[in-house]
């Protein structure tokens, strides 16, 4: 028997777990329950598509801003720290 409130609760429940579902971090049983729900609920299915695409966009996102060129004194400080670290390793016999 159709019960809108029961369905709404189910939407609500799976809503909290959709990222974990996308990330493969849910137990098998929970995944199956979500998939069963999605097959019968096109709004939730559409919502999951939008969430999955959001994650894909974040993964392809590269901020537009770039740092200024590395100044010579800053580069020199990094190189000096690197050389000292290597010397310490050599001295400790590694």
């Amino acid at each position, binding site marked *: 028997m159709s019960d*809108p409130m029961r369905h709404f609760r189910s939407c609500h429940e799976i809503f909290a777990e959709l990222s974990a579902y996308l990330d493969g971090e849910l137990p098998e049983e929970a995944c199956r329950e979500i998939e069963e729900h999605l097959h019968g609920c096109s709004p939730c299915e559409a919502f999951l598509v*939008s969430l999955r*695409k959001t994650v894909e966009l974040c993964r392809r996102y590269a*901020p*537009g801003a770039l740092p200024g060129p590395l100044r010579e004194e800053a580069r020199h400080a990094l190189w000096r720290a690197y050389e000292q670290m290597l010397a310490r390793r050599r001295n400790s016999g590694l």
Partner: protein
Amino acid sequence: MAARSREAETELARELIHGTPGAFERFVEAFRTRLFQYSLMVCGQREDAEEVAQETLLKVFENFDQLREPERIRPWIFRIARNACLMKRRKSAFAPARELSLEELMPVRDDGSAERRFEIADWSALPEQKVLQSELRQVLEEAIGELPDIYKTVLLLRDVEELSTQETAEILDVSEDVVKTRLHRARLAVRRKLDEYLRTHGN
């Protein structure tokens, strides 16, 4: 963003510790821009982000011999960067963390009835693999930038830097459950901004 597989980073870390010629330059090139961009999103100021990137690289080179597992180079570096960002924030105005509730992030139903319809844009035409068009990229950047700090940091580490839940939890000194909860809410908030954009601008 440069190609950056975990395997390539691990190999670069091994070369660096063995003093392989050219490894230093490649390492600086591989991480400096990413550290700057992460820090800019977290700190919000170019000057702070430049300093965090430099301070992080300096600490990395000073302490590289303490990295026991080269395959953990990425989480190790971002933990140092995260701490450097925290120091910067302590020096600037500190805004208390705002919580995002799951309720406020649920899609709005388009009527008050029991009919199962949410207001969702048509995402189907959104390109899967193409480079982000500049306007959409701008919307995404603003959406991430507007997240409260505790959510933004998790999203940047998990989805942009693609660190694991466990690695992110270790970097932030929180439980894996907290990472999962914050990540979900961060994604939902970003999704909502993108959805608003798609509904008003189409694809």
